[in-house]
């Protein structure tokens, strides 16, 4: 999430004077050319076969996949030969680039195309281009907007999770006994599979008849406890489960930030006789803002993907009250095989997320800078 300048990249690791022979350079160019030629040939061959122009070909596109990675390897090796040390440096980042481009760019572009088609796997007509029809029906789909509104509620809940996570991180950073024990225990929920948690908590502990929480609720005077029938209670129950799994992640990020705080400033505050309340609001909190922003943003990103628990506990019910965009689209795929429309919903959601995260990044970077300048500067 960082956009700061990188301290290590001032090019201090230059290796001077490794002689580059022109023979190596030619060999490198040959390797790249051969790899490119092979990949292009395999691709063309398969396209011709798939479109029916030629008779024989591979039964699947797997060879094209292999040829792509062979081509990537040839490019990386060849540019080391051609560009010498600069090539060796590029070789660090190129494998990840080739990998990501192959597996993200193609699906995203292809997804944009699917989003503009009428494609239901269970219908016999197959895939048909229908322009912006999906967008129009999306616009008039109350269930989709309902799911989007739920996402707003879920995202707002992140700030409560943040407050709890910050409190826990402060406690773990304080002078306590059995620190390691508490740290391990507090981290454990993050290790658990949301699907297992769906059963453990959603279907067992919060079960209306035999679950311990229902028993407790009855003991406290709630006649017929039901955690997934009333819209708001259901939403809260889902939110509690998701928070239970993911608060540890925020807590760890914040704890790591707390441990990296400059010790001298806190010592100085103590010497000056600041109360712990003052120390927190005047020093710790402003200094922790960057770490807090990172933790909240990461958490929001994970929150926007929330699906497993909803799918397995409520399937979006009651009446769509707990539905998330992901679980809604999942049902669109799974139950109605409506691929084209589902993909259109997903792409629209992605665009909303990108706009939201970009705005959030812009806003918070500016705000953090101003806030920490105004508050931390006098005390530092």
């Amino acid at each position, binding site marked *: *999430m960082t*956009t700061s300048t990188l301290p*290590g*990249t001032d090019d201090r*690791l230059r*290796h001077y004077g490794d002689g580059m022979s022109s023979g190596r350079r030619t060999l490198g160019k040959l390797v790249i050319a051969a790899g490119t030629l092979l990949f292009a040939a395999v691709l063309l061959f398969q396209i011709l076969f798939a479109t029916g122009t030629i008779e024989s070909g591979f039964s*699947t*596109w797997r060879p094209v996949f292999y040829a792509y990675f062979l081509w990537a390897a040839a490019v990386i090796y060849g540019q080391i030969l051609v560009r010498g*040390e600069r090539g060796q440096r590029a070789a*660090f*980042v190129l494998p*990840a*680039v080739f*990998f*990501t481009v192959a597996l993200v760019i193609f*699906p*995203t572009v*292809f*997804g944009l195309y*699917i989003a503009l088609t009428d494609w239901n796997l269970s219908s016999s007509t197959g895939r048909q281009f229908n322009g912006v029809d999906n967008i129009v029906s999306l616009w008039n789909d109350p269930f989709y907007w309902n799911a989007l509104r739920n996402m707003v509620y879920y995202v707002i809940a992140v700030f409560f999770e943040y407050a709890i996570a910050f409190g826990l991180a*402060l406690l773990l*950073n*304080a*002078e306590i006994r059995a*620190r*390691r024990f508490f*740290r*391990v225990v*507090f981290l*454990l*929920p993050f290790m*658990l*599979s*949301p*699907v297992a948690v769906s*059963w453990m*908590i959603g*279907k067992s*502990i919060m079960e209306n008849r*035999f679950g*311990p929480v229902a*028993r407790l609720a009855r003991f406290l005077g709630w006649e017929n406890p039901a955690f997934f029938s009333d819209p708001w209670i259901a939403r809260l129950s889902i939110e509690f489960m998701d928070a*239970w799994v993911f608060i540890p992640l925020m807590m*760890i*990020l914040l704890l*790591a930030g707390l*441990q*990296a*705080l400059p010790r001298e400033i806190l010592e100085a505050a*103590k010497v000056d*006789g600041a*109360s712990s309340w003052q120390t927190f609001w005047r020093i710790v909190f402003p200094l922790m803002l960057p*770490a807090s922003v990172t933790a909240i943003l*990461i958490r929001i990103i994970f929150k*926007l993907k929330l699906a*497993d628990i909803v799918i397995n506990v409520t399937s979006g019910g009651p009446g769509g009250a707990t539905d998330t965009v*992901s679980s809604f689209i999942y049902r669109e795929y799974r139950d109605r095989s409506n691929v084209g429309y*589902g993909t259109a919903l997903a792409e629209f*959601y992605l665009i909303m997320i990108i706009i939201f*995260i970009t705005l959030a990044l812009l806003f918070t970077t500016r705000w953090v800078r101003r806030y920490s300048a105004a508050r931390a500067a006098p005390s530092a």
Partner: protein
Amino acid sequence: MATYASAAPAAPVREYVGESRGRHIATRFVIYGILILWAFICLFPIYWTLTTSFKSAPDVMQGHIVPFVDFTPDWKGWRSLGLSPDTIFETSTVRAEFMKRIANSLIASLGGSLLAVALGSLAGYGLARFPYRFGPLRNNDIGFFFISQLILPPVVLAMPFLVLYKELAFLDSLPGLILVYTLMVLPIVIWVMRDQFMSIPVELEEAALVDGLSIWGSFIRIVLPLALPGMVAGLILALVLSWNEYFFAALLTGASAKTLPVMVASQTGSQGISWWSMAALSTAAILPLMIVGVLLERYIIKGLTSGAVK
């Protein structure tokens, strides 16, 4: 970046000057109260699941909680999985199925995580050390490109991947799942690794280069060993996310490559499933990562300390 000093824990916020002893004790009381309460919240569901796998139907319905006091533990749940002492040596189709799913989960999550750590360490090191220029793109842009993949929700990639994998004959296969998981966790690994490498002083590599090591030589022999905490932290995060992954596994796998979360979910869906066997299944699904978490927990904080302050 400040290194994490476990010998002298940082606790400067506490310990006040001139505070009454009574208030001090009260504060301690509140702090430990909260700590124990939250520990209970974290542990109770796990405890509940573990004990329920040893309960029989009346114990579940009467809400018995403490084994040996409330109820007599029984291997019931584990017997239904074929994992109790008396059934472990007999043939059991449920156990065979369960072992297959757990093997699939292991291969897919370990494969994806290791591949992501390998690719991510290389890219993280490159981005932390060398000034790149790919056309108009500089290091920050490339780094942002990788990390921004994190916001891609699985639903966006699901359908295109389904179509792509069908063409590539990767549907319902472990290599296909490994590729998806690598893609899914790579942004986090790159993020952790880049910050980890930035916290290592560049002078070490300068010295290594002067001594005649190549760039790759100094990376492998000098830098990588120092970056081990970050690599372990990245590996654990990747393992947690891919072992527990449900969405892609549910859509892209079928009979042969199905993973453990999908098996657990399919059992949850069916009505009237017995609590004890569900509890045993859930316990078995969460146990491996709980062990990993308990053993390697300190590395997570160590590896993230350099990253989170950014």
